[in-house]
Structure formats: C-alpha cells, structure tokens
C-alpha cells in the first residue's frame, strides 16, 4: 500500500553554506515551475519575550514591514507585489519568519529586500505607534470580538506550564503593547535579529551557483553580531492534573481542551514520531478513534481535533510542547463525560496496542498530507527552513514521510501510555453569554 521508505524521501537536493557574518543559508533548487520562495527565519519567538514585554516578538514582526535602510514604508510590499509576488511573516513560539513567493525573475529583488531589513529596519516612533494600533485590531478581530477567539492556544499554556516563557500571552496585553518604546524595539533588534541568529532558505527555480553569488552580494555587508544564548524553554514534566476555566460571553456552546506534555520534539525525535502518528490515529478524519467515539458512537461532541504544538505543526516547535485534544460539545453534555471518553480511547491504545493495518492507513494519510504541503514551492521552502532552524537539518523535512512510515505499532502504544489522565492540563470554555438555548 505505501511505497518503500526510500521512495518517500523528497528528491529535492539541499545545498548549504554559512556567511562570515554567521548567516546560515539553505538552497533547495527545483526547476519545474518558474517560481521561487525566499524565507528568513529568526531564532526568536513568543517564548523569548521578557516579562513586561508580552506580545513583543509579534509586534516586532510588524515593524519589519515598515521600511528599512533603502526602502521607505509600504515599498517592501510594493516591490514584491509589483513583481507578481506575495509575502507575509508570522510569529511562532520558537521563531519569527518572513517569506515571499515570486516569479523566478524577481529572485534578486527579494534577496535585496530581506538583506536591507536584516541590516537596518526603520524603527521610528510614528511606525511603532501605528503598528501598535494595527496589532490591537488584529487581537480584536482574532480574540476579543470573536467567540472561541484564540481558544485554546492563548489560555491553555497558562494551565499546562510553569515558566513565564511558556505561560504568558504571546499576542500580548494591551498594557504591555502600549508601553513599548522605540528603545525596546532597537534593543530587541540588536539582540535577536543578528545574521548569526537566522536561517535564509531559498527554494524553487534557481541556479545554485548564481544564487549563492546573489546571496553573498547582498547579505555579506550585513555586519556580524553575536547570537544570543540559545533559549531555554524546557521545564520539568507535570506530576498532577491541573484544571482551569475560561468564560466566553460570545460563545453559544461550551468547549474543552486537554493538553498533555509530550516527548522532546528535537532531542527525542524518534519517540516523538510515535506521538505524531498517535495524534493522527486519534483524530484525523472519520476513521479516527475520537471522531468515531465522540461524534458517531456516543454523540457527545459537535467537533473534535487533536494536534501537536499549539499552532498545529508538530515539527516546528522545541521542548516543552503539548498534544492538545480540543472538543466542542453541546451544553447538555457534561464536560466530564467528554473527558472520560477521551481518556478511555487513549487507554485502549495504551492497553491493547494498535492493529498494523490501522497504523498503515494512518501512515498513508499522513504521507499524503506531507506530500501535499511539499507540492507548493513555498510550503516546501518553509519546511526546509524550519527544519534547519529547529532541528539543525533542513534535510529532515524531506525525510519525514519515510521516518513516519518506519514507526511501529509499539511506538504508538508507548506514546499513548504517556498521555495519562493524571498529568493532563484541562481547560474548560464556558459559554456565559446567557443566550436562552
């Protein structure tokens, strides 16, 4: 049913080199479509923020689009879009990235733009005030004005973890955002946006030799600065169950999220891969254990999903991270019935193991999803970049399907044994809008 492991390794070669200023560069050529993707990943995320500066990594991501040494405000966007390209950036727990997908004739322009802002973004009072306003609207649209806004990724960590790095609101409090200064932004840039703290990854329709010359032309002049010490985000595993409640006045029905600590995704990848397939087995599609039990057999839920990493990508986070099961259920179903059913399903896997044919189906589905992600030049390039930054090996992105195909039923069973009801973090969302239903 599934091809042999070797055939699952993406046949995209990866070349890498490091500039004198410390910038790590990964090139992933593929000449089949006339499109390139250019991405820069900085090793600074929400978990790097100091107390009093919640939301700053994300606010700073906005500042990186406000112009740079040779590029006025709005011109970054114009130069990319007028070349027929798209761009964006995003802030994650462990990194902040910037990326563009463009017709290949615009490659050098994209390299120039990324180098210009790595050298000197335009951090001005006016731009900072403007972007604080924009970020507040982003938080209103995604969190405050919307039922289930940011549930559970903003609230669950507070229950599941202990350290400030892991527990604080990565979108930021309005108080912290509003009190941010140009000095804060300048310091943050100088500390975290050093070339030696970044990975540049370019994929798609490119010639390796020519592209290396272009990269050196524009990035060599960026001055070297020391990289900050590696972030320490791991913390001891929990030994008790912890519960919390969040009230949502806009939501018409309740929901619950259960978080379990999982093995270190980087230091213990082989064990973690068992957890990756367990997550799929539990909740991917109509054939999955939780979909069958919660929706079809017991009719306890309206929707369920389980995922690794708070943003849903299992391979772009460091320790400490969670497997989260999220269930939306009708008001007349007590939350403890939902929890009991989830724990029972996991216990079945832990006790009885996993039939080989079921695991083979889950693997086939996971494989197809990895291939689908790799079908777009941008998706593939981002995968290589995050693998290089988080795991130290871009090649890993191309090997994941084969690595997952080699996972045994015993590894999945072992992963299920790690999801104990006694160490789960449980966050209930209560619908308190008072709608008569």
């Amino acid at each position, binding site marked *: *049913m*599934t091809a042999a492991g070797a055939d699952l390794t993406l046949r995209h070669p990866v070349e890498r080199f490091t500039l004198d200023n410390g910038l790590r560069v990964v090139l992933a050529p593929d000449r*089949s479509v*006339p*499109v390139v993707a250019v991405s820069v990943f900085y090793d600074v995320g929400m978990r790097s923020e100091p107390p009093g500066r919640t939301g700053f990594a994300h606010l700073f991501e906005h500042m990186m689009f406000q*112009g740079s040494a*040779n590029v*006025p405000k*709005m*011109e970054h966007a*114009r*130069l990319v*879009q*007028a*070349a*027929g390209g*798209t*761009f964006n950036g995003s802030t994650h727990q462990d990194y902040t990235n910037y990326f563009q997908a463009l*017709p290949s*004739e*615009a490659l050098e*322009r994209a390299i120039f733009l990324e180098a210009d802002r790595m050298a000197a973004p*335009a951090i001005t009072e006016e731009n900072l005030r*403007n*972007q604080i306003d*924009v*970020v*507040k*609207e*982003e938080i*209103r*649209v995604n969190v*405050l*004005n919307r*039922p*289930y806004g940011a549930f559970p990724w903003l609230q669950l960590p507070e229950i599941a973890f202990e350290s400030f790095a892991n527990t604080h609101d990565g979108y930021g409090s309005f108080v912290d955002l509003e009190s941010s200064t140009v000095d804060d932004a300048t310091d943050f840039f100088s500390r975290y946006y050093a070339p030696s703290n970044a990975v540049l990854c370019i994929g798609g*329709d490119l010639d390796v030799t020519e592209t290396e010359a272009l990269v050196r032309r524009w990035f060599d002049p960026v001055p070297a600065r020391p990289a900050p010490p590696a972030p320490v985000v791991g913390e001891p595993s929990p030994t008790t169950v912890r519960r919390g409640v969040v009230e949502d006045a806009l*939501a*018409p029905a309740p929901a619950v999220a259960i978080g379990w600590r999982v093995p270190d995704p980087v230091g213990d990848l082989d064990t973690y891969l068992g957890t990756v397939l367990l997550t799929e087995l539990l909740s991917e*599609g*109509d*054939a999955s254990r939780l979909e069958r039990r919660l929706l*079809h057999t017991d*009719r306890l839920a*309206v*929707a369920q999903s389980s995922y690794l990493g708070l943003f849903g990508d299992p391979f772009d986070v460091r320790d400490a991270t969670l497997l989260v099961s999220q269930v939306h259920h009708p008001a007349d179903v007590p939350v403890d019935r939902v929890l009991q059913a989830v724990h029972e399903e996991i216990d079945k896997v832990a006790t009885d193991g996993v039939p080989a044919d079921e695991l083979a*189906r*889950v693997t086939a*589905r996971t*494989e*197809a999803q990895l*291939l*689908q992600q*790799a*079908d*777009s030049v*941008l998706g593939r390039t981002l995968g290589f970049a995050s693998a290089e930054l988080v795991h130290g090996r871009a090649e890993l992105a191309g090997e994941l399907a084969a690595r997952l195909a080699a996972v045994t039923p015993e590894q999945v069973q072992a992963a299920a044994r790690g999801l104990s009801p006694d160490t789960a973090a449980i966050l209930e969302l209560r619908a308190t*809008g008072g*709608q008569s*239903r």
Partner: protein
Amino acid sequence: MSAPVLDLSLVPPLGEPRPTPVPEVHETTLPSGLRLVVVPRPGVPLVELRLRVPFAASAARQAATHAARTSVLTGAVLLGTAGHDQLEIAQLLQAHGGELSVSADADRLLFSTTMLPDGLAPVLGVLAELLTAATYPAGPVDAERSRVVERIHIARSQPGVIARSALAARRYGAHPYAQQLPSADLVGSVTPAALRKLHRDRVLPAGSTLVLVGEVDPAAAADAVGTALAGWVAEGKAVAAAPVPDVAPAPLQLVHRPGAVQSNIRLGGPAPGRTDPQLPAVRLASMVFGGYFSSRLVENIRERRGYTYSPRSGVEHLMAGSSFTVDADVATAVTGPALLETWYELGRMALTPVTEAELESARRYLLGTLALGTATHAGLASTLSALFGAGLSAEWLADHQRALATVGIDEVTEASRQWLSPAGLTAVVVGDAEEAADQLRVLGPVEVTAPAVEES
C-alpha cells in the same frame, strides 16, 4: 535614523518573465453526460480529485428548504452505502491517503479529495458507491442533523457570518443567494427520506464535472473513470440559479451587536462575470483600490491611520451573478471615519485616473498570483473545477492573462465608475449601535436593526 528614501538604482531589476506553462488538459464526456477533465502533472506523487455537481435551489420559494437539506446531505452522504458503513468508507479512502470532503455553496455540491497515485481506481470505486448507493441510515442521519444544528448556532455567533448574512439578505432579496446559512429549525426537520429524494433528483452525472490533476496517465484515468462510474446514469438535468435581480442600494444598515469591540464593515455590489470583457479592468481596479497590501485602502486605513488589521476588496463569481466586495473590521470608536475613508477611496477610483505604476503593479501581481495559484496540483484542480463548472475551459486562463496584459488607465477609470462607485454599493455594518450609530448618521441615513437571532 533618517527616513529611508528609495534609491531605485539600488533595487535589482526584474528579469524577463518565463511564460506560465499551459496545462495539458484531456477532456472527454461519458455517455452519462459527465464531463471528465484530466491533467497529468509531474512533481509530487499525488492525485487531486474534484467532482462538481450543480446544486442550486430550483426556485426561490424552495431555497430555504433546499439549503437546509443540502447542509445535512453534505455530511450524511458519507454515512453509509449499500456495501459499506461509514467507518469502512473512511478506512477505504484513508488507506490511499485520502479523506473525502463534501461541501456545498449556492451553486454546487463538491466532492473533493487527494490520494496517492495507486489509489485512483479504489477511490473512484468508493465515489461511485456514494453516488449510486448512499443509504442515509436513520440513526446516523439523526446524529449528523443534530451536529449541523449546533454548528449553525456557533456560526451565527461569528461577527463575520452575521455581516455576510445581512449583506446577502439586503443584496439578493427574495433570490436564493440571500440564503447564507440555513435556518436551524428547518435543518432540525430534515428526514432521511428527504435526503434520499434530494440525492435521487439532483446528484446527476449530466452537467457534472470530474477533474483529476497529478500523477495520472490520461488514457488509463479515463478508463478507470469509465469503469468505476459506469453505473452512475441517473436521468435528469442540472439546475442553475435564476439570474440575480437588480436591487437598488438601500440606506446603510447597522446590525446591533451589543458590546462589540469592533465594527465589521461590508460593502457589495454587482461585478462583471467571467466572460464579460470588462472583468479584467474591474479586477485591476479592485486590486488598486483594496485588493492587496500595496493598495490605497490598506495604505490609508491600516498603514496611515491604524484603524484596522486587514481591509480587503475582491471580485467573487457565482453562476447567476458576480460581486465586487469590500471588507474591513475596524475599532468601534473609528467606525464612521473608517467608512468615510473607504468611500473616499472608492470615489477617487471612479473620478480620477490611477497612476501607470499602480496599474502595472496590479497587473503583474494578478498574473504572478495566477501562476502561483495554479502551480500546485490542488490549486490547479480547484481552479479548473470552477472554470469547467461555469461552462468554460482551460483556455480561459490564457485568454484572461492576455486580456489583463492590455487594459489601460482609461478602462480602469471607466470600470471603477460603473462598478466601484460608492453610490452603487450596498453597505452593512455590524457593531455596537450605541457607539457607532451617531458616527455613521453623520455620513447619511442609517437603519439600525437587531441581529437575526433564532430561538431554538
């Protein structure tokens, strides 16, 4: 630091564009009337499948019932066939990397999946079973119906859904397109027998289109489809939506959402269809106005004033009528100023010419994103499914690119005057009326309404 100044001599120039390859499309029609479109593509070893079945409401007075039944059918069709129960169906697909998604909009039902290449024949076999022998078993249908009702309640609490529903109601009046979300009460009364009848009457091969893109051999794929779907031969004819009526814009509607910390501004009006010679000019006008980050609206209300995170405009196509739309979610305190600036930018588009640089940027962006969007199996499959479903062919892609390349400034002004002018657009705002109504009344008449809340 001093303010940056763009030194164009420093910015690397663009090279010559490489032309976007034209997809190799193999098209056939089965004896049943089903159109088959196969596009072999190198790249990753996957096949994307899209089956599009025309599914518009047959008449306005049936639209509410049709929408309610359709909302249950999309999930219930997967609940069992004469040969397999729901779990077996899901497992058969999963074994080949697939998971069938069934969705509906005002025009069509869409069966969609990806699969590993060796799964083509078995996945087509499962699809054929669903099309010809779905059973709609009573118990599972009952559960699915309850879930749909719950999901409708959740959807109705989302401000974006409230705004979209209000705008559709105002723009389409009695036309079925006014029906954005079915009524929970009507959904609650859908029976398995009604679903079987809807399936029998409307899930028909004639007028439907099956698109396959990826690692497929065209001749082998045509054989596999012919064999698997030979039994799908129901009589009958596809139903398309009636043309949308011309509705003159009414005064601005403010839907009261007590305590809302943002106002959701939505504007909408008609737009040229896919084959209208004015479409390229309107798409370019929409880009310059608010269609992407480098637009006037983003520069004004986001980057200059900080009123909003993500304002946007666009052109959307339904079978019976296309739309130009504008969306902005803004802080409550600046609801009036944000609408004023939006109207100002629309008026400026209609009354004064865009610059050559604005036009060139929009043109290149539309051509570039068309290439990016069709560079993946999934993107190309969805694009072709929409085009063939609208009665067009893959040639449309090349024709549209050529047309975009030749539009001039005067045509953009003319198109803006006709389609983007504020006087021709219907406007709806969802927000806290106590905070927003007085601001909006400064700009013109406002009708304040309560949100359409359905008790159950």
